[in-house]
């Protein structure tokens, strides 16, 4: 069995940030990523980030990915690509699947930064080809330069739905409408305004009733919802489109933690099943830490800060004290407080309270 000091699972914003800080503290880090490249979902974020300078505000996500990847190179992090971690067992042992082979790795500490997956929506024919996750469309057009269709409808007005709609327009695709089941826009209004001034109709209190097509999507039928989220009879409308993007939220990729029998809690505000963790980000499994979207859905800015804290703490508990430990710890926690402070952070504050973290 291969032995490693610190294993990080997931090479997105949280995992890469954890790798940087733990390396700085003097740990030898091995990072496992199931994709063929590092960066997680940052590598398709063509927009400039929000937050403050410490979270790379006004830098495009694609450039933040480059910055974080270069840091891991600088610190000699051992990278395993195309390597899916399929098991988490007792005594900090993981099973990795790579090149059609399985192998085991034993670590002194493990940081789980697996991120999240896109939620699905229930409606008739929701499995017709041409119906995509909004993030999948972003991958297709921003990484590969391949377009999902000519005329798209977006479902969901959270930041992902708003941002991907704008990016579809930037790639030359017509966005016919954005429908939102709630009575108001979910994401940042500045993103919504960008779409609206380009003439994209944002239709609230409306959802998709059914998809129609022979072997592939040809049109959708929308329906209005009342205040109790019930369909209003006779309010159906047909929209012709060859692609439909679903953007109705993310849920944490908790499977490894669940498999390892970590204490978990279903928290709606955090997107699903999340681990209960200490203020040092340690789960109920000793020396197994978690950070980023797997502990609750937030923006990538928070995931980067959380990753740094997890790296700092995992190292400290094994006796590797970061040279700037004290100032870093205080500063990073302060950054998270600020990111979660405003009205946009209300949901996450409420969710974190349920798993024992207080941000007031």
């Amino acid at each position, binding site marked *: 069995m291969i032995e490693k000091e610190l294993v990080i699972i997931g090479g997105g914003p949280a995992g890469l940030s954890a790798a940087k800080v733990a390396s700085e503290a003097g740990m030898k880090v091995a990072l496992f990523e*199931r*994709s*063929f490249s590092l960066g997680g*979902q940052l590598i398709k974020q*063509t927009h400039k980030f929000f937050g403050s300078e410490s979270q790379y505000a006004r830098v*495009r996500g*694609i450039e933040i990915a480059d910055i974080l990847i270069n840091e891991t190179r600088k610190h000699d992090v051992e990278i395993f690509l*195309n390597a*899916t971690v399929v098991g988490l067992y007792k005594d900090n042992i993981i099973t990795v699947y790579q090149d*059609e082979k399985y192998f085991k790795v034993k670590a002194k500490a493990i940081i789980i930064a697996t991120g999240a*997956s*896109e939620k699905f929506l229930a409606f008739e024919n929701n*499995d*017709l*080809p*041409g*119906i*995509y*996750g909004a*993030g*999948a*469309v972003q*991958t*297709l*057009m*921003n*990484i*590969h*330069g*391949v*377009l*999902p269709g*000519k005329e798209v409808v977006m479902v969901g007005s959270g930041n992902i739905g708003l941002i991907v709609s704008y990016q579809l327009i*930037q*790639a*030359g695709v017509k966005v016919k409408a954005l429908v939102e089941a709630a009575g108001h826009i979910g994401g940042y209004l500045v993103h919504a305004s960008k779409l609206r001034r380009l003439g994209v109709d944002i239709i609230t209190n409306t959802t998709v009733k059914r998809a129609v097509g022979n*072997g*592939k999507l040809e049109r959708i039928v929308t329906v209005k919802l009342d205040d109790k989220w019930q369909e209003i009879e006779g309010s159906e409308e047909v929209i012709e489109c060859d692609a439909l993007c679903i953007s109705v939220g993310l849920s944490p*990729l908790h499977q490894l933690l669940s498999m390892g029998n970590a204490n978990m809690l279903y928290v709606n505000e955090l997107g699903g099943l999340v681990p209960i963790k200490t203020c040092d980000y340690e789960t109920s499994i000793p020396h197994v830490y978690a950070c980023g979207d797997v502990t609750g859905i937030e923006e990538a800015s928070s995931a980067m800060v959380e990753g740094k804290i997890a790296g700092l703490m995992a190292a400290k508990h094994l006796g590797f004290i970061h040279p700037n430990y004290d100032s870093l710890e205080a500063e990073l926690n302060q950054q998270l407080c600020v990111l979660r402070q405003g009205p946009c952070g209300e949901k996450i504050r409420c969710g974190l309270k349920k798993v024992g973290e207080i941000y007031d």
Partner: protein
Amino acid sequence: MRVDEHPILDFKHKEKIAFSYNGKKMFGYVGDTIAAALVDNGVMQFSKSVIHERPRGFYCAIGNCGSCNMTVNGIENVKTCLTLLEENMIVESDKAEVIIND
């Protein structure tokens, strides 16, 4: 269908490579995943549901959903969204036999 020009991104001209999909010759570019190349070639159906054999397309693109699993160079259940296209790859709709225990 590819992006012509983009205000933020540069899609550098990459080397064209040939592959086959269910016996039909297709082309993609170096750096494409198999799934991206298939969508570009107009392939919408990637797999079928197990019981009702409903067509399934490309859904999550990050290795979660399993809708894009195919047989690649004889290996079954390959996640085509996470697998880079290579010259002369043989891509086929999955033929893996599914056994359902009721």
